[in-house]
């Protein structure tokens, strides 16, 4: 099983500012996934991050709003840019498990005021 460290675990941010979320995995993985979970809702995939190439964004998510870095096979960051209260959510990073399923980080609970 993979151990994923995600930080910060929570933050309260002013609108108009940006927050960068970090995700560290204890093993090398090809793909890392970033999800958003709005309050009381399900998980929605934001983008898939591959090392050495640009992230692939899902419909409704754009690079200018959610820039992603993937400098190596164990680390990725997601930035939530120019935040508004609508960005208040839980953001989760995830990796695939070798035998099926996915592991998730502990999540970042973001509140924008």
């Amino acid at each position, binding site marked *: 099983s993979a151990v994923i460290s995600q930080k910060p675990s929570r933050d309260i941010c002013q609108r108009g500012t940006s927050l960068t979320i970090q995700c560290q995995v204890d093993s090398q993985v090809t793909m890392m996934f970033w999800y958003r979970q709005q309050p009381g809702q399900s998980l929605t995939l934001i983008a898939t991050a591959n090392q050495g190439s640009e992230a692939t964004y899902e419909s409704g998510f754009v690079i200018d709003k959610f820039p992603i870095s993937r400098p190596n096979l164990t680390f990725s960051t997601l930035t939530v840019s120019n935040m508004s209260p609508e960005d208040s959510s839980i953001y989760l990073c995830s990796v695939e*498990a070798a035998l099926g399923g996915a592991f998730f980080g502990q999540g970042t609970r973001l509140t924008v005021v």
Partner: protein
Amino acid sequence: GQQVMQIPQYQHVQEGEDFTTYCNSSTTLSNIQWYKQRPGGHPVFLIQLVKSGEVKKQKRLTFQFGEAKKNSSLHITATQTTDVGTYFCAALIDQGAQKLVFGQGTRLTINP
């Protein structure tokens, strides 16, 4: 895009009662996964089903994948307070790259 419908949205039971959540897709799925998210926690992988008609058990939890691979269910027998949380099904979709599409989740609360 591909959608996975999950019902019910909420379920409240007395401790000791059974609980079932259902997941449906309009298209055939290659596999279905189930996750549990405790209040304030992150999703935790429970199981993956890949074969038509597959049934898997984990203690009091029984997972089924339909014969047509378009539906799945999770059944908990004799619920305990530790079962509280939201249960999500998720389908692995291949659209150039594989990705997980989650159902809406069923939030289970239990009266002790």
